[in-house]
């Protein structure tokens, strides 16, 4: 097992622990925070996977995932803030 594969395994363990916070989270904003943290960790794992397998098109996937994660987090936060009234 190389160093980068061990890193990938540790990030997977972190994602599982944050998922526990998402499930337990008392308020909806805790769950949103967990979504944000999991999205950042998934971007890291995609970049490490691209370096392990030497396929640079996976970096484009990571770029699109970063943009979609940002847009979804901001949209859900504003949806809760306006109590379902988006205009």
């Amino acid at each position, binding site marked *: 097992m190389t160093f980068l594969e061990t890193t990938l395994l540790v990030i997977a363990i972190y994602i599982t622990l944050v998922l526990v916070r998402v499930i337990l989270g008392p*308020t909806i904003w805790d769950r949103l925070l967990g979504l944000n943290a999991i999205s950042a960790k998934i*971007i890291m794992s995609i970049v490490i996977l691209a370096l392990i397998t030497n396929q640079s098109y996976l970096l484009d996937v990571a770029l699109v995932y970063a943009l979609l994660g940002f847009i979804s987090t901001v949209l859900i936060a504003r949806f809760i803030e306006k109590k379902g009234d988006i205009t």
Partner: protein
Amino acid sequence: MIDLLAYLLITVALLFMALGVIGLFRFNDFYSRILISSKIETVGFLTIMIGLIVLSGLTYATMKIFLITLLVMVTNPLSTHAIARSAFLSGYTINQETRR
């Protein structure tokens, strides 16, 4: 030698992220949790990406990793701010009894 530096940077980033995950369970109100999570996540992301840039050398893929780093460095604090603003404007207050 340069690989050793990259491994050191990635290990430091994993330690930062471990602190962030511990902080997510250690504090028991939302504003403390969002504070520790946002700071530690951004720093851990920057450190691990710099480590991967050092590891992969100067290639075409390095520019893309740099672009992703730049993008997340701007958008991660913005999305955390959006969550905290949403909680504050919706009237979330800290429960004084369970505060530590």
